[in-house]
């Protein structure tokens, strides 16, 4: 009997946790070698025309406050450590979105000597948004797809 209520409570708690997580994804943005194009489009999604705050997304400065790491650009050698470090500094549960063709595959910068590769060669990525740069709408679409995928399984762990 008591175990049953426990699971009931546990289930409800999980649901609440998930609900809060999906509805309040605070983001941090890191540019590991991008050309700026994707970055301005990410900033544009915060501005009145697109307004990501509708989904509860706030761009935070400190990785400690963030749930979602938005990455742009291929990873250069100098910024690889920094990217890893930022990822490690984020508290669990955390998600990574790679924005732009360079972030998903290296794009036009494949084969440049100072480029390590794309984001998921360094840290795990949860969602990819190709485009050069993707339209702000496409970025919103990607974020929504990520959030939807979190909701899909009843208990999502990382």
């Amino acid at each position, binding site marked *: 009997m008591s175990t049953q209520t426990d699971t009931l409570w546990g289930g409800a708690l999980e649901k609440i946790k998930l609900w809060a997580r999906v509805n309040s994804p605070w983001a941090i943005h890191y540019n590991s070698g991008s050309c700026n194009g994707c970055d301005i489009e990410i900033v544009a999604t915060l501005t009145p*025309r697109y307004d990501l705050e509708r989904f509860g997304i706030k761009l935070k400065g400190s990785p400690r406050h963030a749930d979602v790491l938005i990455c742009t650009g291929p990873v250069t050698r100098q910024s690889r450590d920094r990217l890893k470090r930022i990822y490690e500094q984020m508290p669990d549960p955390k998600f990574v979105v790679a924005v732009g063709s360079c972030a998903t595959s290296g794009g036009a910068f494949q084969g440049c000597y100072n480029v390590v590769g794309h984001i998921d060669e360094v840290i795990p990525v949860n*969602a990819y948004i190709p485009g050069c740069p*993707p*339209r702000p709408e496409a970025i919103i679409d990607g974020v929504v797809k990520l959030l939807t995928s979190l909701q899909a399984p009843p208990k999502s762990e990382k």
Partner: protein
Amino acid sequence: MKFGTMLRDIWGSVFKKPATQRYPFERLEAPDQFRGTLHWTPGKCNGCCLCMKDCPSNAIELITIDKKNKQFVMRYHADRCTYCAQCVRNCRLECLGMAHDEWESAGLKREDFVVNYGTEADIATLLAKHSPTDAGEPTASGAGPGGGSTATP
């Protein structure tokens, strides 16, 4: 001393409709010029590979099944594409085009971005030739029916 030069803006906005578009609840079309996902129409292509040659990011692979019968499969890496449309310009036979309404291409798996264009038979030949576990070879590739189909990433 002058303060509040934006006072009228802010209070005006309170009584105006916000500038925000309601995407994704209301979808607004991209303009016709927009360079979205690349498409390839088989049949016309003669395999000159000019599209491949000038692609700044290796997004296009033109795989020859049978050169004489003009049987090709184009493997398109949407994740690499820089959407510059140089390939479209280079193609004199107008096999290539960029869809202006395909820009919601975000995905959760990188493999989904690789698309094979071509007739169903050609894609099947290609897949048979290479083992399906081939790196970067998606299971979703041959998904679309008929020629010029997209496996929507």
